[in-house]
């Protein structure tokens, strides 16, 4: 009997890393959009406009990063 623990370990590590990365990034994006603006209010001396723009930008970056992780995963599966 020859169980390929290496490959099984790979399944665990890769899927853990990829899924947690996507979940955390997506949650951060949502918090930026829906949050009480924890960092925005804690930074005094900003103009109101800048304060409103920052969470939207942060959220966009998070969602973009999510898309990159997913896209790279699919690329690895299909192309390689």
């Amino acid at each position: 009997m020859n169980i390929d623990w290496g490959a099984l370990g790979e399944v665990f590590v890769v899927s853990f890393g990829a899924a947690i990365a996507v979940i955390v990034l997506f949650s951060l994006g949502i918090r930026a959009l829906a949050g009480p603006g924890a960092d925005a209010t804690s930074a005094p001396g900003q103009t109101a406009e800048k304060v409103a723009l920052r969470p939207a930008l942060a959220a966009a970056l998070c969602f973009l990063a999510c898309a990159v992780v997913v896209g790279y995963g699919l690329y690895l599966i299909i192309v390689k």
Partner: protein
Amino acid sequence: MDVIVLVVIITALVFDFTNGFHDTANAMATSIATGALKPRVAVAISGVLNLVGAFLSVAVAKTISSGLVDDTKISPVVIFGGLIGAILWNLLTWLFGLPSSSSYALVGGLIGATWVAAGGDAVHFASVVSKVLVPMVLAPVVAGVVALVGTYLAYRITARADRDAVGRGFKAGQVISASMVSLAHGTNDAQKTMGVITLTLITAGTLRAGSAPPFWVILSAGLAIALGTYLGGWRIIRTLGKRVTEIETPQGFAAETASTAVILVSAKLGFPLSTTMVVSGAIFGVGAGRRLASVRWGLAGQMLLAWVLTLPSAAIVGALAARVAETGTTGTVVVGVVGAAIAGGIYALSRRRPVGPNNVNDVPARQLQPTGAGV
């Protein structure tokens, strides 16, 4: 091409079809339960992505067609018996709304049939254990752990944000994550049927041993599973979406992301996982990640029992069917007719209390009552 080969290919596609509607729940149950997608829209998206997914990889198909049984010792008739076993078990568990594993049913049926027809040494047990059984048992645990950690983090990160807005955000995310599960399901499960058809063509001498599935096999397997998925296995969707644990959108998102990752990575490495078991593991994981007590562990016991029974039950039916089918043309016809009659009977029983897109989210009153330890 012999008539029997054609019959086996059609039977394999019928299995693929039952696989589709048995497993729609895997991808869409949580989205339908949280209201992220309308039931009809959900199954349509799922069907299309199943088809797309079928074209992503052939690693799993090759594991099935060249790793599990000795293709020089069996004939298409044996595979026919195995498929009948798998189809009947799939239909029976669907009738009871149990999310059992279509993959276990298929592997069980195939092993049982090969065993009685060609003896125990025609089954590559070492390969069955290392490439099928061990990954199948570990994968749901992995998915559950990933989903548990993911859910915890998602709630932690969004704890201070506006709850309604968070709910809406994850609802939108679920549309994408559920679609990804469908894609993964198409990749992993359609390949099992491709593997069986390829195995049939190898045993019939049409293809050389170790061949990859031809294009028409990939296309027809993809279409059969997509059609099954589109029809929707509403009974199982209800079990997974409503009865295991009440699911909020962040949990649905976490469960689907975890399942997709596990299934796609395994498919890439050629492990034919049970999509059903992976998704169920993830759903229990997200339930536990939010609040341990909210999971109905009694139902987990029932599901576990169905999982354990699946392989041997399908193996026994497959063995019986192969034994009879092997006696000659009459035997094969008898197996086909009896199989179709049982399938028809199960369908007739299901019409007594139909579950469809209109009542999929209604939980029967008795299931809302506390059931002891579980609630």
